[in-house]
């Protein structure tokens, strides 16, 4: 009698876990779709920004907007304007964009000259916005990781219960 109830309990538990697995798998599909949408947003942002970079290159000259203007290892140290901070939401690690308050920061647009065309300013604001989209995409990715971890754990439980 006791053995039977124990078995019943276990089958009940497995059913509950299987229901949970179904929900997690559905969530997984939604997160995958969300990630793809984010990536497509990043793509359109990058394409938009690149057009403005190309326009500034046309106005200022080929080498004016190129890697030659970027700081190298020999240039003086400086800090990033935008960084990200870790927060925790529903036990899932999430990131958020924060402005850096460090004194040793420089406006990157100055690397390309003092009087730069309007297009470079536009490109800058587009890429600043892209950083927000990127962090959003990373957050979806982190949720996806957490979801995969949960699915794995539940699958292991079902395997153990069945054996």
């Amino acid at each position, binding site marked *: 009698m006791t053995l039977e109830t124990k078995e019943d309990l276990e089958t009940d538990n497995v059913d509950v876990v299987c229901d949970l697995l179904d929900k997690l798998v559905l969530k997984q599909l939604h997160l995958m779709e969300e990630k793809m949408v984010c990536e497509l947003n990043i793509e359109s942002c990058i394409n938009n920004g*690149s057009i403005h970079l190309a326009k500034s290159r046309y106005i200022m000259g080929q080498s004016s907007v190129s890697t030659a203007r970027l700081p190298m290892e020999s240039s003086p140290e400086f800090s990033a304007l935008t*960084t990200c901070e870790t927060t925790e939401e529903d036990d899932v690690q999430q990131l958020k964009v924060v402005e850096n308050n460090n004194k040793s920061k420089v406006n990157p647009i100055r690397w390309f000259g003092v009087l730069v065309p309007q297009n470079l300013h536009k490109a800058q604001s587009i890429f600043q916005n892209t950083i927000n989209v990127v962090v959003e995409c990373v957050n979806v990715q982190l949720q996806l990781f957490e979801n995969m971890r949960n699915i794995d754990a539940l699958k292991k439980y079902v395997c153990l219960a069945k054996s």
Partner: protein
Amino acid sequence: MALHAAVKGKLISVIGDEDTCVGFLLGGIGEINKNRHPNFMVVDKNTAVSELEDCFKRFVKRDDIDIILINQNVAELIRHVIDAHTAPVPAVLEIPSKDHPYDASKDSILRRAKGMFNPDDLVR
């Protein structure tokens, strides 16, 4: 009081072609730390794969980096190294470039996520 510096946020690093690097650095993610180590790498057609691998591994090891952005066409060159990186942080995000549109079937994370719906896996 002066010792109590504000908690510094983590960096976003980028490995990509000229336009991607120039764009994101213009957006303000670039930094050169006091050891003169930049958090970006510009990849052109002459860049060796070993160089890419070294740079990626260096960024993964740095504890001040939380996100590594890498162009998908560049990621294809060092796919084995990216597949081997399974930790959630630093997050490796494959981004499209202006010449190479996004291909979801190549993305490491999505492939791993899709692998969970493997028929062999479901039978278990």
